[in-house]
């Protein structure tokens, strides 16, 4: 018995697979397994390196479902697997590392305040050759000109590095029932059609609403998009030809700002920064507590659920009949300069942005406005709102982010904070207010 035990011990000792070796082997295997995903992740998995085509944006449901169907359609058309990557959370902070690591999608959405940086650092492809090739699925002439200037290099050099996927022009929404209760006999849309939708008409309307103890209008925020329109709609010149901000010295802009400050002071217009945090003007509007709202088409799905009558019109003008230039929010689709599927990515871009692509994405409950001409029927679906075709008119005349803001991320970030502070403090004159803003914009920081 003892002998047999010794034999076993000897055999174990002689074996090359002893316990320590077994543990070591297991440890190395474990190490390999643990490291594999990390090494695979470090390896990239660049969208451009595979056979498929990946594109990314920030839109979640329900739009992501439309994108999924569009990707399926493109898979058939382009002959490569097209996949939409929905970026959840902070889009930019996820896109930047991907670009830096060479692992970004083949095509992706670009917001207006970082396009300039992507152009400067050659992360996005110049679309000029593709658009001039004659075989492009979309033509530059199809787009409203004011909507893609920010996709050009800020220094004025040639090139176009993205095109707007759609747009969100600022229009004047109004609650017909509240206006009627306040004794406004002719609503803004009717006034616009009659050519009497002027600054005076709006002031009169807001005076009447204030008398009912309801809110008339809310100045929607402190970003350029929220208040530049009040100067340009009343004929102000905001930037000169070289792109420098000049509204601190432009008489019409100053008059418009003086009017705006007067309305804020009288209570006809409320600054949204004075509302409780999280209580947006759109919510007040849905609740019937706010008579008028300057907002893009994005609120339409919610507006379809309200119980009161509503409609839209352009912002008032000095003439009372013109659609004046006002801000339009846009995002662009660009092609990754490092994509290994550039030809297919460009083809995808063309199909995404052309009339067929925009109709596919924006029809049936879409909440944006086409960025190209000739798709009027998309915004008049169901005849809601009654003057929905005006969305297109405003988009055609409107302007996207000014280059002076788009080309400097620091200015773009600081501008709304600075304006918010001044509007809350309420102790600036139009001239001092605009002087500080212009200094920030032209000064670059």
């Amino acid at each position, binding site marked *: 018995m003892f002998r047999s035990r010794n034999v076993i011990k*000897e*055999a174990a*000792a*002689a074996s090359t697979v002893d316990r*320590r070796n077994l543990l*070591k082997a297991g*440890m*190395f295997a*474990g*190490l390999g397994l*643990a*490291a594999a995903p*990390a090494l695979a992740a470090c390896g990239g998995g660049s969208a451009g390196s595979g056979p498929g085509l990946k594109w990314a944006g920030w839109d979640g449901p329900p739009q992501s479902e439309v994108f999924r169907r569009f990707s399926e359609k493109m898979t058939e058309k382009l002959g490569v697997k097209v996949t939409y990557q929905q970026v959840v959370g*902070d889009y*930019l*902070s996820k896109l*930047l590392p991907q*670009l*830096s690591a060479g692992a970004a999608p083949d095509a992706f959405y670009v917001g207006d305040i*970082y396009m300039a*940086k*992507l152009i*400067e*650092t*050659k*992360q996005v492809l110049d679309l000029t050759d593709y658009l001039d090739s004659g075989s492009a699925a979309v033509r530059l002439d199809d787009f409203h000109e004011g909507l893609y200037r920010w996709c050009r290099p800020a220094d004025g050099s040639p090139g176009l590095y993205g095109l707007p996927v759609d747009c969100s022009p600022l229009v004047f929404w109004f609650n017909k029932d509240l206006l009627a209760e306040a004794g406004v006999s002719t609503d803004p849309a009717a006034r616009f059609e009659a050519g009497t939708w002027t600054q005076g008409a709006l002031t009169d309307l807001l005076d009447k609403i204030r008398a009912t103890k309801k809110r008339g209008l809310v100045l929607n925020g*402190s*970003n350029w998009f929220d208040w530049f329109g009040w100067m340009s709609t009343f004929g102000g010149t905001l930037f000169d030809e070289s792109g420098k901000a000049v509204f601190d010295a432009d008489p019409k802009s100053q008059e418009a700002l003086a009017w705006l400050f007067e309305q804020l002071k009288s209570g006809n217009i409320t600054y949204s*920064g*004075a509302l*409780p*945090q*999280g*209580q947006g003007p759109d919510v007040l509007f849905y609740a019937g507590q706010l008579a008028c709202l300057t907002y893009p088409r994005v609120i339409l799905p919610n507006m379809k659920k309200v119980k009161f009558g509503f409609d839209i019109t352009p912002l008032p003008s000095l003439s009372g009949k013109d659609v004046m230039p006002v801000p339009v929010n846009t995002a662009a689709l660009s092609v990754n300069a490092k994509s290994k599927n550039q030809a297919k990515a460009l083809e995808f871009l063309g199909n995404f942005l052309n009339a067929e692509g925009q109709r596919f994405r924006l029809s049936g409950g879409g909440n944006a406005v086409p960025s190209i001409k000739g798709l009027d029927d998309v915004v008049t679906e169901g005849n809601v709102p009654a003057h929905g075709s005006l969305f297109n008119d405003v988009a055609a005349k409107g302007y996207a982010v000014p280059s002076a803001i788009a080309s400097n*991320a*620091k200015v773009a*970030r600081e501008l*709304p*904070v600075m304006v*918010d*502070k001044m509007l*809350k403090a309420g102790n600036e004159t139009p001239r001092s207010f605009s002087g500080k803003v212009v200094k920030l914009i032209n000064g670059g920081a």
Partner: protein
Amino acid sequence: MAVSSAGSRARARLTSADPDVHPDRRSRRRRGRDTAAGYLFLAPQLLGLVVFMVGPLLFALVLAFYHWDGFGTRSFAGLSNFTEVMSSQRIQRAAVNTVWFTVLQVPGLMLTGLFFALLMQRAGKLTPVYRLAFFAPVITSSVAVAAIWLWLFNPDISPVNNALRGIGLPAPNWLQDARFVIPAFAIVGIWQGLGYQLIMFMAGLQSIDRSFLEAAVLDGCSEWQKLRHVTIPLLSPTILFLSITSIIGSFQVFDYIYVFFDDRAPDSARTIVYEVVRIAFGEFNFGAASALAFLLFLALLVVTGCQLAAQKKWVHYTE
């Protein structure tokens, strides 16, 4: 025969030592092999630590001395990123806000945590229920917590404000009034972090030897005296640990601000980490952001070092 011979050699390697090698050297070799094996066993974890913690930390430190927009080539910046962030009034304001938040949150957390832990000692059978109730916010996403408090801080409908008005106090516009925005963050932070503090204090209280308290009773101590002279000194290791982790956590506050204000927080609401994110991803200035992050790291290192140095004077270890 050959197999038997190989087996004998293997046995010899395992069981007998080379007579030419000094015993100390053999011992060192064995220790070296054991150490190497230990590191190999730790390797999966160490690899993760190096790749995901040490690597980025060193990269951030290097970046702090460069101008870099996140894409292009880096250029050496010397100390200019540090001088830029240290001379910025915006960053100075954020630093003051961060310290103010810490001053409000950390004592608030610890005092309420200790208070409720002491009460929970008398909760009897309901202890697990209370523990669950207090701990629920800890495991709730900060984003969800902030979303709830966004409504609780709405002055038009806020029950907090109604309660304040009920006892005759002014009801502030929490998130819009520059004086109250940091206290508002502290309230949310205390509400969410209380459960963790409570559990830690309860564990600390349970580890106190009953004989100390019984001896105090025999000596005629009142409840307050027992707390003051027995419980708190014996809880001091727990208090030290919680104060260190709470201060580090409060210096890194970011999520509430981001949910409350997105990327447009006013000066009065910005903290250091908020500025780090903003400078990096909003202004594409990764060098300055890294410099600021490194300064924050240094500040935390100094604060934690001071806490550890001071512990000799007030922390009592029973073992």
